[in-house]
């Protein structure tokens, strides 16, 4: 059984934001109100700890929308379990986050 990772409130917020559908750094910044210098290093740490994983968007999709491709983040199974534990530790976490417009959480 994997050791449970104890998250700080900030890391839990970021994990929750990604789970809610804010799947790239800037989206996480917007919904959490955290600065870029906090969000991106925290996401690196979460990825290093295998709580989230990243993948690049297909170039063809980005080209069709005339913008650069984005790097998207999703929760791993381990990340989802850690988030559930964090939500028990920080009960207000769920209330802080809303799904991005046009998507359900």
């Amino acid at each position, binding site marked *: 059984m994997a050791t449970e990772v104890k998250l700080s409130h900030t890391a839990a917020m970021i994990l929750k934001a990604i789970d809610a559908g804010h799947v*790239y750094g800037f989206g996480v910044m917007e919904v959490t109100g955290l*600065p*870029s*210098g906090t969000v991106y290093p925290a996401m*690196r740490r979460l990825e*290093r700890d295998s709580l989230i994983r990243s993948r690049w968007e297909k170039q063809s999709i980005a080209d069709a929308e005339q*913008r*650069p491709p*984005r790097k998207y983040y999703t929760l791993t199974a381990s990340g989802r379990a850690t988030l559930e534990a964090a939500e028990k530790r920080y009960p207000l976490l769920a209330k802080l986050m809303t799904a991005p417009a046009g998507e359900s959480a």
Partner: protein
Amino acid sequence: MSPAAFHLAILRSAALLVPEPQRTDWLAEWRSELWHVRRDPHGLNVTAFCMGAFRDAFWLWRDDPSPDRYALFAESPARCLALLAALGALGFVTALLLPAARHGLIYSPFRGNVVMLAPAGQSGSSISRQRFEALKAHYDGEFTGLAFYTLAHLSLETAQGRRTLSVARTTPDLLRLLNIPVARGKSGTPVLMPTRTAWRRYFSRDPRIGVADVRWNLPAGVDAWLIEDQPAIAALPASAEGFAVGRLRYTSLSDSQFHLVPIEERSFGFLPSLAIFLTMGMLLAIMTSDLPGGRPQRVGPRSSLFLAAKILLVLPIVVFGSLDLASLGSSVSGLPCISHSSVACSPRAGYLPISAGAAPSV
């Protein structure tokens, strides 16, 4: 440099910290995010966003388990020199953006172009208010700011008992031309701004009282500045003696009636910062003392040339970095001010109300 190029330059500079295998991917992600941030309808501060890249890059650099963490400096002499040049340029640009540091950079016989106008042929530098008014009317275009102050004594009931303070009566123009923020009281109400020493000594460090951090060596040291409206100063007797201070629009002014006395800006702690940066520069030179790969090399012409180039490039980092640091540390003035009458009536500090007639006595 366009804002877009500036922001990209920030990201590229931060990317130098990122371990080489991750650098391309890292930069691509930040550039992609930047593209979206620029189009953010909420008007996010793009520069602040880009500055966050340094923290991200630093985290990756620190988290890198490879023993080649310092490869940034050692992998290529050209890259090392480019990095040092970039750091020097960054320090220079920052110094240009910080007012106090900029004054330190620009050469002028009148530092910051702030001068005192002293009548020619007199030993003292004071002039009468009437003469100041004539001077102002004649030379207004030559100065970006011209102000008059006169000395007075103000008796105040302080926490330490009744004290007589030496005050300089002036208008907001003077503090503005010395780049000192000043708040105005209610219309017609004078504002008292003590010096930092007087604030500690007589005002029990009351945080509601704004402090005038005047770093200029003006004649006649005072305990406080009494900022009054123009009509109050104009109502002074024509013969009232005071001092005329101006900020020159250009670097010189020739006149037979007055001579210009440059007013020196007091040091803002440049030397301690210089020592810190000199130490950092030495460390940088030691860390990068080997040529590619971090392997010790025989001292040859290339190594000597490399070392000499590094020393040359470390010097601007040391000088500009010290100026920036000292300048940042000195910008502590500008607490919100409260009006003179409010100071007098403050029950907490225990000051007695001062009637208009009893206020300053010349």
